């Protein structure tokens, strides 16, 4: 009931729910929320029956592109996006791992060209289930859970 109220408080915009608490600020950084002009409400350490403890972010008047949403997959699985229009939930979206990650994560190989040249990184997702990505440049496979954001 409380959650319904939190969601309903937004007239138009997006609610990002089920964020692991420790990843909350990664989500903020990845979506560039600190430079948003519209109101952003950040809930930290909220009780959750499923996760024990979670983060939630509400962004007014903002609807993320599928590309932006897919970026979130590098932070955590199982996050949910709820799109609100006129206080009503109009759509729910899951975070889906994309086929490619461009300019989002860092290659773990220090001898990779992308760590030594001013250039965007590029990874192909080779196994969405196990979360394995492969650097387009050095061809090293790496686990999504271990990679660092740029």
């Amino acid at each position, binding site marked *: 009931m409380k959650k319904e109220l939190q969601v309903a408080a937004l007239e138009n915009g997006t609610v990002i729910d089920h964020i692991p608490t420790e990843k909350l600020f990664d989500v903020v950084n990845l979506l560039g929320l600190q430079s948003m002009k519209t109101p952003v409400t950040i809930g930290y350490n909220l009780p959750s029956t499923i996760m024990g403890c979670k983060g939630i972010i509400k962004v007014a008047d903002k609807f993320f592109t599928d590309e932006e949403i897919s970026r979130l997959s590098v932070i955590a699985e199982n996050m949910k996006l709820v799109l609100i229009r006129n206080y009503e939930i109009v759509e729910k979206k899951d975070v889906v791992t994309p086929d490619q990650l461009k300019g989002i994560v860092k290659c773990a190989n220090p*001898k*990779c*060209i992308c760590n030594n*040249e*001013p*250039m965007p990184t590029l990874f192909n997702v080779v196994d969405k289930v196990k979360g394995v990505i492969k650097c387009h*440049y*050095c061809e*090293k496979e790496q686990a999504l859970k271990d990679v660092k954001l740029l």
Partner: protein
Amino acid sequence: MTIADLSKEKLNYLLEMAREFEKNPNRELLKGRVVATLFFEPSTRTRLSFETAANRLGARVIGFADPKITSGTKGETLKDTIMMVSNYVDVIVMRHYLEGAARYASEVAPVPIINAGDGANQHPSQTMLDLYTIYQTQGTLENLNIYLVGDLKYGRTVHSLLMAMRHYNPTFHFIAPKELEMPEEYKIYCKENNIKYVEHTDFNSEVIADADILYMTRVQKERFTDLMEYERVKDVYILKNDMLEGTRDNLKILHPLPRVNEIAYDIDDNPKAYYFQQAKNGLFARQALICDCLGITLDDVKNDTTIIK
């Protein structure tokens, strides 16, 4: 270009082109063209091979052999160097110490890039000359028994060869010390591509009795974490002349060179030794790679009127 990604048709096409260059290596097919050789990491033998390939086709060659005397150390980006050189030449041959450098260069450069080795990643021209040598000595690439010996963990040439051979139904034998055995990812690759393989730690005449190709590599001390292990195995993976008794008549011994001590010097006179001819084939394989990336076709090469007899 990644050899492992090439189709069987494309590989066969390039091999056939290399064979034309073996018949007639001296031509003026590239007269008026300029080839750059940019070696951000020194490799004299690879550079000489590429430069000879270009010169024997009538191209002119510019470039640098040692990045210490060029802008690379002044903090210029790879992209800037590539863009600058692209203004002057028709094709760039590059070797770099960073992995993926050639792929990145090929994405930014307006001219074709040939990868002459990028760190531990790829060395496609070596793979082409290895394939060509196997084809030349056996008359086919199909259904061969190929024995890879020595450092199978870090040896990138054996990994590329393994992947390129997937089209030809080979049976591989991996002969290596435990610490340098074939990595799991390549064994998985074999299973996924129906490549048969057998693993050995012993290296003797019985093990190699059915070999068509014996591909030797260096076992380097710095690859070992356990130096006791190195001392124990360092003399095990040395090929000696008496081990070749009882081997197949068509057996040929290959090595990417330079060798250290893994092939005894008295083998050089054995007709089964083929590593120097193998290095020579690098010339023909590289002539084919340069022509292919300049849009010169096999038909152009076959109907070439610029041959110098």
